[in-house]
């Protein structure tokens, strides 16, 4: 299975070399949790503030149990704001 991982703002440094537009394709095994993928790329848990799967926010308490499926887009930000 493949998902798209997007790491934005200051988390871009955790993307592999050659990643474009803050995104990379990731092979995952069936049953892999959202948090396992974040950990695989060494993103500190406390910096994974805004976590979206297909644009929908996932609470911090649900990230260990949330299983990703083929084609999902996982996007992660540190705390950000604007206006």
């Amino acid at each position, binding site marked *: 299975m493949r998902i798209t991982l*997007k790491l*934005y*703002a*200051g988390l*871009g440094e955790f993307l592999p070399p050659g990643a474009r*537009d*803050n*995104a990379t394709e990731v092979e995952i095994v069936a049953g892999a949790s959202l948090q396992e993928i974040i950990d695989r790329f060494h993103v500190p848990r406390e*910096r994974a*503030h*805004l976590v*979206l799967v*297909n*644009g*929908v*926010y996932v*609470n911090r308490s649900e990230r260990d149990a949330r299983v990703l499926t083929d084609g999902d*887009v996982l*996007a992660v*930000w*540190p*705390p*950000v*704001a*604007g*206006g």
Partner: protein
Amino acid sequence: MAWAKKVMRVNLTTGRIGSEPLNMDWAMQYLGQRGLATKYLTEEIDPKCDALGPDNKLIMTTGPLTGTMASTAGRYSIVTKSPLTGCVACSNSGGFIGAEMKTAGWDMIIFEGKAPKPVFLHLENETAELVPADEIWGTSCWHADEWIHRKYQDPLMRIAVVGRSAEKGCLYAAVVNDLHRAAGRSGVGTVMASKNLKAVAIRGTRGVGNVRDITAFMAAVQKGKKVLADNAVTGQGLPRFGTNVLMNVINEVGAMPTRNMREVQFEGSSRISGEAMHEPRESDGKPNLVTNAGCFGCTIACGRISTIDRGHFTISNKPQYWGASGGLEYEAAWALGSDAGVDDLDALTYANFICNEDGMDPISFGSTVAAAMEMFAMGVITKQHTGGVELKFGSAEALCWAADVTARGEGFGLELGLGSKRLCEKYGHPELSMTVKGQEFPAYDPRGIQGMGLTYATSNRGACHLRSYTVASEVMGVPVKTDPLVTEGKAELVKAFQDATAAVDSTGLCVFTTFAWTMEDIAPQIDAACAGGWTAQKMLETGERIWNLEREFNLAAGISGKDDTLPDRMLKEAAKTGPAKGKVNNLHEMLPKYYEIRGWGRDGIPTNETRKRLGLKSGGLAA
């Protein structure tokens, strides 16, 4: 007490300049800046007056903390009646001129009447004079700024100025200060130009005194600065990536208004984002972003200073734009970018430079261009209207041409200067105007962020994100995360944000501090500086009073609850992609509850009980 306790009154018709004491009874109720100037405006003008006539007044106003050592305490506002909306207008800006005005010893400058010939106000501490501006009338903000600086040979002079767009009647013209900060929204620059007032040039050397308890103030300020520094948003995210870090966030959640809000996601967002501004260009290897920048006293420094590739079509033969200047904020990047379908970062930066150079609100400008592009796609606007330009979605060339002609008030640019509402009405398609009360939407599609629909519908200055930024909660989780796709609880959320923001806008502080500060952080700073016992609770009550007073102005101006609505596109055309796919904005589920908790009747008019509780006139302003 931080207030200078002095108001300057400039009668442009007669040329008389006078000084009078600040009304401290009103200051106790409305604090300063947005609130206090709105009180003055409601007392001094007929809300039904012609916004561009001599009976309107324009108030340049600071808050009690403006010019002090508090973080971000450089804000000022321009309060007047808007020619774009007919509502009360209050446009807030940073930079340095607010602090300079306070340091010169003035809380407020009230401009009234209309000068017989173009003038600018030269103010140095207690001395003020109106100076002929014939030589700079008809020139850009940047030219006029440089001319005035040269005239007085004073690089430390701070200048607020209107450009050619304002002079030519563009209804969303801004007042630009310090070259690339602006009181941007609602056409306050148009009002200033209508009075033949080209600029306000200020030099202040007196400092800010009257701090009630200087020891307590320094302690409160230091504590506040530490909170900002330790917060990941205000200490790291905003200085590094600026507000345009939101480009990818809002696109991902499916609330990115695209191509005149026909769509809610933009395929080119990553190419015009805050992250993209850091990426080296393929052409010259340099990033768009040169550095961040801070306004007076700011310890956040979210401002962007950018360059354009010198080989880019926009400036290859215009060396005057080869240097670094004010770069893209999120709102400008959205309006000039996704709403026009343009993903050329250099082109957006150029259009942004032009908006700064000639004083145009990039939100209203971009949104108006987007509406024109949709009508061009329909064949309603043709090349005959544009003088041969293909005004197509996605055309960077068309966008930059539109910026040039609107800035200078030439040809079709005069029509674009009407704003989206009037332009769409003129061409027979009012339904294509993405506006509330005549003011263009900012960068959050209310189908994907439901609370923003209520925010826009009820904003006292027409569609605006800065009147109640529920995005903070609905998307970013500040102060708590709420679901952007539900309406439950949003009436309460919007009211809370509206009241708090009205209070912050009346202090002299920047609203961006509230990504880290709560009212419990702000109130001690106000209370240490000002008499009056400013607790967090009193601040919020003051915010509510201000909100209701603005509402009273609008009601007296003839704007009613019927105007608290959204374009049909938001209410009837469902989002096509993203998490909000299939959803419209359910305003009808939020508005009645909002009226109820505001203490307003079903007609959206404050009840007399509410008026009494807030110390407002029974029966409204008209009574």
